[in-house]
């Protein structure tokens, strides 16, 4: 299990006359952590959405192992996991159900899904909160639940958008360790963050400024 997600000269905008990202290129390689940094509004989330197949670039392409990522369904089928910025959890489900439902939806058998759910919540320290509704969890707990869901999917590519923003130091380190473990497992991990310390632990860093990118660390 190894793959390379390549972004090649993409330009992305929410309206036709203004682009959030302009001519961005970057490669996320299997076994590596790629940090995407930049100030607020620089386009970090937009880049990750484009990599996740959720946004179609107006020009350029996103490919995985040379094959273009057509849309989010295609990305899901090719196991590109996306941990969105505001966790993307369903409030009417418990933490455990949020993980379980997505596992089953992605093809895991119900029995395996139960086991993996328990393991992933355990890994982020939420074993005891598995039965709690999302709206009853704190912001940090919700963020960890979203991470547990992403990790449980064991994606080929893991896109984590600001997943440590609401975490305390201990949990932030725990999450970074987990993301590192994902990379070691062979996944290509992309971490959007404005936290320099989090970026520092990554193998490469792409810095976004007003829609343009600069690879400040790592291989192009």
């Amino acid at each position: 299990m190894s793959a390379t997600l390549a972004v090649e000269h993409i330009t992305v905008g929410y309206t036709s006359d203004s682009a959030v990202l302009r001519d961005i290129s970057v490669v996320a390689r299997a076994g590596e952590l790629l940090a995407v940094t930049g100030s607020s509004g620089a386009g970090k989330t937009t880049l990750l959405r484009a990599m996740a197949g959720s946004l179609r670039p107006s020009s350029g392409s996103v490919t995985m192992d040379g094959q273009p990522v057509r849309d989010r369904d295609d990305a899901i089928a090719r196991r590109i996991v996306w941990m969105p910025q505001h966790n993307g959890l369903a409030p009417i489900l418990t933490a455990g159900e949020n993980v379980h439902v997505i596992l089953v939806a992605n093809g895991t058998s119900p029995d395996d899904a139960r086991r993996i759910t328990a393991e992933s919540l355990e890994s982020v320290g939420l074993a005891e909160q598995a039965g709690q509704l999302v709206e009853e969890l704190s912001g940090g707990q919700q963020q960890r639940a979203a991470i547990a869901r992403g990790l449980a999917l064991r994606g080929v590519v893991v896109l984590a958008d600001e997943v440590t923003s609401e975490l305390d130091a201990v949990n932030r380190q725990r999450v970074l360790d987990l993301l590192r473990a994902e990379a070691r497992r062979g996944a290509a991990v992309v971490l959007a963050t404005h936290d320099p310390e989090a970026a520092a632990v990554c193998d490469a860093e792409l810095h976004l400024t007003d829609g343009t990118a600069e690879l400040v660390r790592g291989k192009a």
Partner: protein
Amino acid sequence: MLRLVLAALRYRGGATLALFLLGVVAVAAGVAVPLYTMAADRFAVESEFRHAAPVDRSIAITSQTPVIDSVEYSLQTLVTEVRESAPQQELTAITGILNRGIALDSTQELWSASPLAVRPGACEHVRMTGKCPEAANEALVSTSTLSRLGLSGLDGEFRYNLAGSPEPLILRVVGSYEPELNTDRDSFWAGRPQLVPQPLRVANPVFTPIQTFETADVESIYATVDLVITGPDWPYEQLGDLRIDMTKAAAENGYELNDGLPFLLRNIQQARDRLRISAPLGAVTLLLLALAILILAAGHLARGRQRENALGVLRGTLGRHRFFLMRGPTLVVLLIGAPFGAAAGWLLVRALTLTVFGDEGPLPMSWQALAAGGVVLFLAMVGVVATERSRRSGPLLEALRGVPPRQRRTGLILDFVVAALALAAIGQTLFGEQNTTSAGVALAAPILAAVTLGLLATRLVRPTATLLGGARLRRGRLVSGLAAIQLARRPGAAQVVALVVICVALVGLTADAWDRTAREATAQAVAQLGAQQVLTVAAESRPALLAATHKADPEGKWAMAVSRARLGHGRTMIAVDTARLGVASGYDTAQLLRQLHPPVNAPIVVQGTGLVLETTLLEAVAPTPVTAVLLGPDGATVTATALIAAQAGDQAVEIPVPACAKGCRLAWFSFERSPDEIQLKGLRQSGPDKVLLTGPAMASAARWRASFDLASEVTITAKDDTVSLRYRPADTRRISRDIRLQVADAPLPLPVAVVGPRELEETQEMSADSLFTGVERPIAVVRTFDSLAGVPADGVLVDLEYTDRIADSVDNAAELQVWLGPAAPDDAIDRLQAAGLVLVRADSVAERAARGRLSGDGLGLRLQLIAAALAVALALLAILVLADTDRRNRVAELVSLREQGLSWHRVRRVAHAGYLGVVVAALPVALVACAVAWWLAKAHLSLFSVAPPLLATALVMMAAAWWADHRVARAVAAPGLTAEAGQ
């Protein structure tokens, strides 16, 4: 601030619109309830008044008044006296004179017992030919009376023997009249049987001006003052005092008082009572439901603003500003909607009064209606403020995160109170005493039970659906699992379940009540009418009615002659052709025939052209006229007079009766004076000759009787094969010139069947009654019923033929009817008219039932029907409000699941299983609630009646929920939405 409020309203446009509509409907309901109740009450009173018999709308006073100075003066004196006791302007006083007498032709052989009447305005109430009498001794005579007297045209004269006048009057006919067909419904006649002109009736009154009495040498007159209620707007509460005053005045001044106002009052009161029981149920249900739904929707909107309020608190926004920001939008919407609601309520009632009542009269907006609308608005606003307050009372952190508020104790207390009320009502219904109060409670018990089940469902739905959803998810059944989870945790889902349960139960109950009311109205119509169709007819006499019915329906398969008369003690008598009782359902005709029509003396039937009376004069006296009265084969009266010669000894007196060739029944012989010297020893007919009664039969005591009015003054002696009679008046001022030897060919006492307890058969409680007219006759109760066809309450059933025979009169003042059974042919009316009857009007069960559905319970039920329809509309709006408020969250949630790998196929199904799933899940509970409510309401379910409205309600709710869900699914599928969601 106002701009902020308006911006908040625009932000939730759909929910704002729905809340506006809810406010409009709630205020409309508040305004409509009192408006409708008042309109229905007015309609009920008008309906009862319109259908009341004239006798029930008037007080008829008759007084034998001495003539002092002039007849006019005497009459005015009486009117003044009466008006002192009854000064109400709503009572129209119709004054007149009604004196008994006999109209005779010039030969004095043809006569009619027509009363002589003074009735100003009478000419406008009949179809007149000629002119209205204006001068003394001018007369307006009915065509049937003229025909009897042998007068063919106007300007003829006839003799009138006025009771109390020593000399006969000679009256000149200046006009003739035909009674209007609906004359028996004309209040002008005040329901006076002797005064009401009837088609074919020979004894119709002869109208003359007061001058006739002024010129007549009479010492007294029978003056009449009829106080008639001309319109339904009568202060009925004054009636009790009025009757007391009138009764007192009658006792003091010797009036004869006859009024049916208590009947009218009783009927109006019963209609109002039924309306007062049934109308508030629909009204209270509707108002409570409207308020509950409104507050529920407002609470849901408040939850949507929970986070905004928390942010306001965090940012130090002033309390009053937050008040306006949080509650302002809802309150503004309610205030704006209130005038529209008032107008909508008025329009609704206007539409109802036009379509249901056919009332095009003004419908003023009453202050009670506006006040009720105001109260509803006030309660709604208070409820909204309280609900918003409760939504803000949780921890700030939870409010910021949008954590739903915990179940509050007040909610539990409310549930407990409703459950306790329901249990109390059910207990009262099942085990309590039956009275007016318990009837109201019994009506409320089913809906209270349904509400309790609805509330119980809200308590059970969460844990049940959570367990079910969790289990389904664990098994990998994502769509059903997520649908169940939505039911368990979606805000407002449990309340929607309760709404669906309550609304469906309300519709089910209303549908059953509608069906039951229709069936009860039909049953009541059958009971009141007696047969599927009842024709009110006119005939010359009761025997004529019998004969015509037999002629039209010789086999007795479909028509039965009936005569109705109100008896003095509040009961109504129906005299029927007993052998044909099978036309009315539910009678064992054979047994009743034995009981009511036992064998008696055979009638004396003459089938010849002359009646010969064998007599013996014990001594020579002045020639004595003897009149024979017979009933012809078609029920026509045949009278003929002959003189018994003056010389003593035997003589055969032949009375010519050429009209009796085909057979007549002898009713009586009449003598103008006491025939002390005459012995009757035989009776035979001539042309052809035939002996009718020989000496021993003639002398049988059981063969003859005196007329009932002279029973104590006439002595009949039967001995030595002869019969004789002797008349000794008890009061020499009132000497009769109609001394009768009546043929006894009817059972005495007359057997009757009555509505009442079985004990009546054993006691002498009912032993005499006047029956059709005159003094009392002996009767015997031989059978009791719980209800009688045609006279369900207080009815008396007698045999028409026998009762007529003991009526001692050939005149008929009673109502004549023909009851038609189910086997009646299409041309039944034509056949009866061809047989000689005049159709006055036709009543059918269908028409009577339709009228029944528009009275009492039926009027209240219409309010329940509106309540049910509006409840469904409110529930639909509530679903739409909840769905619209929740839509953004649902869309975001489903988009998130979609982005994490839940396929579009599944997402779409989950979206469509949202509120639709909630409604579908609620339906089985709703059916259970319906079943319980029906059981408590003792419903007799008709699938065809209850299934369509229930199905329609379920479908319309499912459609509304589907539409709300479809909007979510469409939003999730919208291109570019994911980008928006991400932003």
